[in-house]
């Protein structure tokens, strides 16, 4: 069956020249968009149109376009990664929108993620949190045998669920407090569950939380919005684990 065609869409897009400039919304129209088009392809079509009109194309982040790299962002119609659950913006398709609709497209709004240009934000804050402790210190040497360290299946599964985090920033972007707790929790939890990561669990929890606070993210109030908007459906139970790990570490001090 052929895809339906959306005859006209109105796009209200945040335009901002650079980090220092004052931004504002600009309205554009796109025509004859197939419902099979992905949201980012629709923006590509708009950009081609803008180039033809000698206008500056809209800058937005994207890379793999298959929901695994965490590069795309966008706050579409009031929700991080758009109205669909469990998808990144690149996996959102135009079949989700009605013909004649007005779509509001904004960058992530979070003090720790400053806007660089148009819809692109600087998410280095997440890298800095990871650098603070989101790793396992490994001494170089031979690769250990895969089954040398036994790991219970439920632990491996849970660690894998946490490891699904792609660091897109939707959690902090959607949180009413701009809290990065789900991201930090996913990283702390993933490593704390596994024997290789457990050794540094205390130091990691303290260092990553301290860095998160330092970068100006807000305080989690457990609304659960992050979990709902997370394209990888990471559970806020990982936040409970982060809290446990942090308290355990602090009590030992």
């Amino acid at each position, binding site marked *: 069956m052929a895809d339906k065609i959306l005859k006209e869409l109105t796009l209200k897009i945040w335009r901002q020249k650079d980090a220092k400039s004052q931004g504002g919304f600009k309205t554009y129209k796109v025509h004859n968009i197939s419902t099979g088009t992905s949201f980012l392809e629709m923006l590509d079509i708009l950009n081609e149109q803008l180039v033809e009109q000698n206008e500056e194309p809209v800058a937005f982040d994207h890379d793999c376009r298959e929901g695994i790299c965490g590069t795309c962002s966008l706050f579409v119609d009031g929700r991080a990664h758009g109205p669909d659950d469990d998808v990144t913006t690149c996996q959102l398709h135009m079949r989700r929108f009605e013909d004649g609709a007005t779509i509001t497209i904004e960058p992530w709004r979070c003090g720790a993620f400053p806007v660089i240009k148009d819809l692109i934000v600087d998410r280095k804050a997440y890298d800095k949190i990871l650098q603070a402790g989101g790793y396992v210190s490994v001494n170089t040497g031979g690769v250990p045998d895969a089954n040398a360290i036994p790991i219970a299946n439920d632990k491996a599964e849970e660690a894998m669920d946490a490891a699904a985090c792609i660091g897109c920033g939707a959690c902090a972007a959607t949180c009413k407090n701009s809290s990065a707790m789900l991201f930090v929790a996913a990283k702390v939890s993933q490593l704390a569950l596994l024997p290789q990561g457990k050794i540094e669990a205390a130091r990691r929890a303290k260092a990553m939380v301290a860095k998160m*606070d330092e970068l100006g993210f807000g305080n989690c109030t*457990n609304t659960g919005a992050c979990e709902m908007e997370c394209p990888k459906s990471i559970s806020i139970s990982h936040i409970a*684990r982060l809290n446990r790990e942090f308290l355990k570490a602090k009590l030992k001090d």
Partner: protein
Amino acid sequence: MSNFLTSSIGKKVIMSLSGLFLILFLCVHLSVNLLLLVSEEAFNAGCDFMALPFIKVIEPVLALGFIVHIIWASVLTIQNQKARPAKYAKRCQSQNCTWASRNMYILGALVLAFLALHIATVWYQFKFGEITSHYEFVSSFLKQPCFGVIYIIAAILLGLHITHGFWSAFQTIGFSNDIWRKRLECIAYFFAFVFAAGFSIIPLYFMIFGN
């Protein structure tokens, strides 16, 4: 432990523990209040028991619990407001979290406004007034529709605050996982219902049967 109290999780643990302490207080408060529905003697005896010295010593601790909960909530809320300098033009928060969870500070502030009224009227009279029968005083006070209705509204607001506050407190201290979260949310709704219904049934009773 040096920077525990200044860390985001540390501040939330203080909110969590003070909140749970206040829930414990509400349990005691409601138990005594419900004696109003039993008999005049029962409630007066309950009030006399609450006036015993070993109960009285807890009063400053309770006051501290309230103060800490309010101050830390304000500090956290101000920080959270600052964490997003530029706001979204369009947001659909109702699709990803509950209204109560988003408005805990407003609900708390409204409960605090009620608390001020409650202290200025009932608590002050209990403490410093010349009251012969506590039951008589409460029944004639709650019989007035203006106070009765305020008390019922406050009970509902308190209930809403607890629907999120109760389970959130456990989540913050790390006592939660995918299974326990559902249980805790259930218990939170149970407590919220008990407090909202328990505290509003009393003014309702006096407004209907008081005359």
